[in-house]
């Protein structure tokens, strides 16, 4: 089995995710990009797990999926609140913490 393809795929997904997080203004899309990053990591975990013939990678991946679900729950709630207050989900406008 070749590990490279999986790693390349994961790296690609990760890069897209990072791009999404840094460049998108829509908060929902930022959340989705975060999901991409997490899934890139999941691919890595499962690939290394299969490569080494253990289930550790899969178990970790399961944990990450669970945590990602919770994270999305919280994230979407925050987006909802943001929308209610500002009628907008443009993340660049949320800068109340400016120093």
């Amino acid at each position, binding site marked *: 089995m070749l590990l490279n393809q999986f790693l390349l795929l994961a790296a690609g997904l990760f890069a897209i995710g990072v791009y999404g*997080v*840094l*460049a998108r203004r829509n908060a929902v899309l*930022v959340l989705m990009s975060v999901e991409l990053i997490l899934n890139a990591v999941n691919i890595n975990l499962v690939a290394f797990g299969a490569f080494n013939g253990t289930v550790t990678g899969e178990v970790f991946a399961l944990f990450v999926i669970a945590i990602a679900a919770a994270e999305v729950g919280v994230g979407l709630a925050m987006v909802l609140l943001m929308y209610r207050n500002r009628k907008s989900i443009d*993340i660049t406008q*949320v800068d*109340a913490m*400016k*120093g």
Partner: protein
Amino acid sequence: MLSNVLLYAGEVATGPSTTENANWFLRNAWIFPLIPAISFLLILFLGKRMPKKGAEIGIASVGICFLLAIATGVSWIDHRDNYEGAGHGSSEEHSTDEGSHSEEGALTITDTATGAVDPVSLAAEEGEAKEEKHPSVAVQREVTWFQTGGVEFGVGILVDGMAVMMLFVVTLISLLVHIYSTDYVGGDRRYTHYFAFLSLFTASMLLLVLSSSTLQLITAWELVGVCSFALIGHWWEEKPNSDAALKAFLTNRVGDMGLLTGMIILFFTAGQTFNIVEINEKAIAGQISHTALLVASLCLLAAVMSKSGQFVLHTWLPDAMAGPTPVSALIHAATMVVAGIYMVARLYGVFFEGLSIGGSSVNALAVMGAVTLIGGGALAFVQTDIKKVLAYSTVSQLGYMAMALGVGAWTAALFHLFTHAFFKAGLFLGSGSVAHAVHSFDMKKDMGGLRKAMPTTFWTFLICSLALVGIFPLSGFWSKDEILAGTGGRGLFGGTGGNGAYTTMLLMGIIGAAMTAAYMTRCIYLTFFGEFRGHGHPHESGKRITVPLIILSVLAVGSGLLNLPKGLAGIPKSFQLKFEHVVEPVAPYFPPIAHATPSYSLAIVASLVGLLGIAVAYWYYFVKVEAASKEAGRSLTELPDGITSKSALFRAGHTLLVNKYYFDHLYQGVIANGVKGPIARAAYWFNQNVLDRTVDTVGRTSVTAGNLVYRYVDQGLVEGVVNGTGLLSNEAGQELRRMQTGRVQQYAAILFAAATVLAGIFIVIV
């Protein structure tokens, strides 16, 4: 050491002198000071809320102490005669420092069968065989109070005959005074505090009596002094009262210097110990140099002078009468003022050896006592205040006791202390009863003719006076006669067998007896006879005042029978010298004093002299003054053309006495002011030229130094650092805040950039 092995070295009996093996009352005598001490705290904190304002707590605690004192006395009498030392209890810790000072060359007598004691030849020089004496073994228990520099400072109890006797006297008089006070100071604004201090005083006095170490003795000594101060100044709103309190306190400080010095000398010369028994034993065994003992006892005499009102530090005692009368009876007649006498009696080994009492004819203690006895008695003649007559009488009687100790008549001194406590307390309480009725202490202005109005007070006062004068067979007769016999005036009036040839003391004692008789007759005439010179209608005091008077007068009559002299015709032997047997230690810590043989002729001479004193005063007051009063039509207190107006010599003497020998002038005018002036001037000069200049220079230097420091260190360095720090933080903050855009994506960008850089470094390094 087996306890029924008794060692005799020369005249001194050695062996275990103390034990812890005794019955409950003797072993736990520490409870005596504890009960009134607790009562003191209870009265102080709860007294005002009690129905009787705290008096009941005081009376209850002292009452318990009195009952315990009786039980302790009975236990001691049993212990004294029957204790044989059951082995284990008698190996004493205080004889560990090679205490076998007399084992070599000592004759060892063993009697295992009965434990009986062979006769001790105490009066070897008289060539007279003495009766056999069972040794008395004092009960001593000590705990370590504190420890410093490898020396343990013990505190504990030393119960023997004299302690038990004092326990009885202190608790009894204190109880009567407590009861009397509920009436006498009833309604006083500081009623509760008064009883609190009575309790504290009782506790301190009991602590003093039971002291097993000199350090403990000093502590208790100061405590009773404080109580005396507080109670003299009980009515401190009036200036003379607070002055009297201060005078008492300050005069006692003078003596306390001697006390401290003497005790320190004893501490070091006796091998770093405060234990009274040990000090005495070493002094008697000759392990302390004679010079050290002499110096120590002279220092301690200063303490006796101040505490027991001996010349020349007696001046505070008459002034102390400013306090409430029951206090005068308890503290300044019966108990506290005898603390000095008790201290000498406790450390008698030191005094006996230090002053060479045995076989001498004069010593400091005896002279001090004799001078006080005459000087105090003379002052009593010119007083118009009834309490001051009694105060000087107390001074004089304390002189008797000191003189008795000085001539080696130890038991006589303590016996006189014992009887004197009763009749003098009775006299003081009687004078208080009179003052309660006429609201004054002035015999000449406000008294006279009170015998009809106050019969109980009159009769008890008369009985106590007769006891004080020494009329047969009242208590004062026995104790005074014993003192006179104890001087052992080398055949004068048949006196034999004393410790030395103190003929001078004997003569002064007899003169003192005549004076006592005369001034007490004067006092009784002025108070109870003639016509009433005061205002209003005096009437007899209540039961709480008269009952203590009656009890004390009964004791004044009867207490003399406790120590009937040896060989008195018609008296069974078992009644003779009971007091001596119980109180006087027969132990290694007590010096081998010789006992004088009493003589009928001496007793008769002393009684006749006393009667002569009464007769002279009677003739003057009851005959001449009475007649002059009738002629003048009013109650006189002295003859209008008396001897002082005729003879210049008598006038001078009278003036001298009225001015109290000018002692107060000496202390106040000459010493205090004389010292005050030069010292004040010297202090002023010192202040101006040395202290001021030093302070000035220091001040100026400080200012200069301060300016320099301000300019360079503070402004330059400290300010710079502080400001610099602030400035730096501010600028750094201004720069860094630009990074805080509030945009999450920018933060994320920095995060990822940093992660990339770190990853790059990681790859390059690995």
